[in-house]
């Protein structure tokens, strides 16, 4: 139960970071934090799954996707840097 509390707090903190940080890198880092929080939760229960190995296997998968996501995020970052927009409010193409 306590791991749930921890995980939720971490996700909350990460989300706060995503919402408030102006710098793209910071946003990406905050996303990593949220991901970490989730993974902790998963880990705390992974062992408890009927076939232990399956729990482990899933956590590995989550870990992998986390890494992949980080890679894509950073690639985007690089692309944006090339167009010297590193601040979240400078990206306006999504204006409605």
């Amino acid at each position, binding site marked *: 139960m306590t791991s749930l509390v921890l995980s939720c707090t971490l996700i909350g903190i990460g*989300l706060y970071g*995503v*919402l*408030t940080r102006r710098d793209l890198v910071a946003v990406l880092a905050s996303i990593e934090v949220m991901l970490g929080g989730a993974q902790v939760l998963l880990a705390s229960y992974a062992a408890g799954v009927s076939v232990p190995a399956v729990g482990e296997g899933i956590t590995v998968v989550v870990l992998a996707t986390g890494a992949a996501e980080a890679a894509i995020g950073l690639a985007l970052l690089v692309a944006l840097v090339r167009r010297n927009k590193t601040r*979240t409010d400078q990206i*306006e*193409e*999504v*204006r*409605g």
Partner: protein
Amino acid sequence: MSVLRTLPLVVVFVPVVVACLLAVGGRFVGRAAPWIALAGPLFAIGVGTASLDGGASGAVRWLGVGETAVRLGYHVDGLAAIMLLVVGVVSVCVIVFSIGYMRGDRGYVRYFALISLFTAAMAGLVIASDLVGLFLGWELVGACSFLLIGFWYERPEAAEAARKAFMVTRVGDAAMLVGMAVLWRATGTLELDAILGGVGALAPSVVTVAAVCLLLGAVGKSAQFPLHIWLPDAMEGPTPVSALIHAATMVAAGVFLVARTWPLFEASPEARLIALVLGTVTALGAATIALPQTDIKKVLAYSTISQLGFMFAALGVGAWPVALFHLVTHAAFKALLFLSSGSVIHGSGTQDLREMGDLRSKMPITATAWIIGGLALAGIPPTAGFFSKDEVVASVLQAAPWAGVALLAASVLTGAYVARATRLAFFGTARGAKEVHESQWTMTLPLLVLAVAALSLGLAGPMIARALGAESEALSLGIAAVAVGLAAAGAIGGWLLAADGGRREQALPPAFARMWGMVRNGYGFDTLATNVAVRPIAKLARFIDEAVDRAAIDGFVEGLAVAVRRAGALLAGTMNGDGQSYTALLAVGVIVLLAVTVWLVR
């Protein structure tokens, strides 16, 4: 002759066909239009004489579902026959008279088409055996009157008068419609013999309400107080039209209606009382207004209103055959007077009495015709007017002395305004600038025919009474003498009033002159009616249009649209391009969704 008895509907169809023929083929017919238009009235006379002692009848199912049905039918009884005769004779005279009077008018053929249509409608009204057929004729007569008053539609006064006439009569017609609805609910039918036969079975309140409603219709059509304001203005129409419609036929339809539905009125004392009061007030009031008029046609218009007042008074006291008799004689001598005035207008080019004078030297026939008519109107023996008006005054005096006295006073005034008009127009020194000439034969012949009628109809009293199925009382010499004496006195007064070309009239003391002017204006009733009825309705209409329709209802609908658009704009504001605000919204969405699922699951 007997074939006419069996085919009364011909009096309606022939003039309708003639009217359509003239309307469509106007150009080809040209000058022959009046002679073709004579067909309708001649048939009316034919059927009228043939059916004096009872004619054919028939009915057809006009509109119905199952057994509840509105039927349309005709029944030519004595009353209808007499009316047909009146309509026929007067129409013939008017049409012949109009040949000369309307020559050279742009709407020559249209005029005769409308007259023919009018004859058809009047005939239909008269022979109808049920209230729907009667109402059909009733309103069509009103429509023809509208079109004929507004015949010279380019003149604003004529257009306005036409609209006013049709509107005021339609107020009465609306009351009639309600009366018909009351009868329909009570008896399930609108056929006169069914209703009148079963009057005994009806509740008194129903009878009274129905009778009063029908009476209102009659008051509207016969221009009785307070719905009389349209008749003087109706003089804007051509004079022959005034003679036919606004003297003899249409305005008499009100009296005819009460006579036709007499059992209903017999069973309702209240309705009769209203008729008596309105009739008497109108008779006296209109006679006073007629006195100071300067336009010859206005004199005759108010005189007609007054004479109709006499008839309504007679109806009020229950003497409906007497009223009918007076209706017939009045039709004759009033048509005669109108046509004479037409001839005078045609000859002297003016309608204003002050610009006439000494017309008898140039227009002898017209003068004699006018004088005979005047004598009949005043009720001087041996003219027909004497007999019929005497019986009216006699019967009213017997039943309601106060009304009788008022009618006698009205007779005095009648004598006065007739004498005044006669002297101003035909005697004294010629004041008109234009060269005066006697009218051609087509105009003077009808005058002679009507003059003969005005003289001889007095003797037709018993024959008419028999046709109506009522016994005619003997002439009460006493009252007759009093009536004639009073009329003569009035005449002398009127004659003196019109001394030296009407200048004495203008030289009245200021107080009296102002009152004289006010009376001439019809006691200001016309302007009163406009301010009380016409103007508030127009203002209310504008208010409803602007405030209720445009602002309230339409505003609400348009407002709804604007509100929706503004709400849309509000939401669009959130899409401000800031990625992070999107995530925040997303997060809020997640919170809400999860909260709801948790709440639902629990």
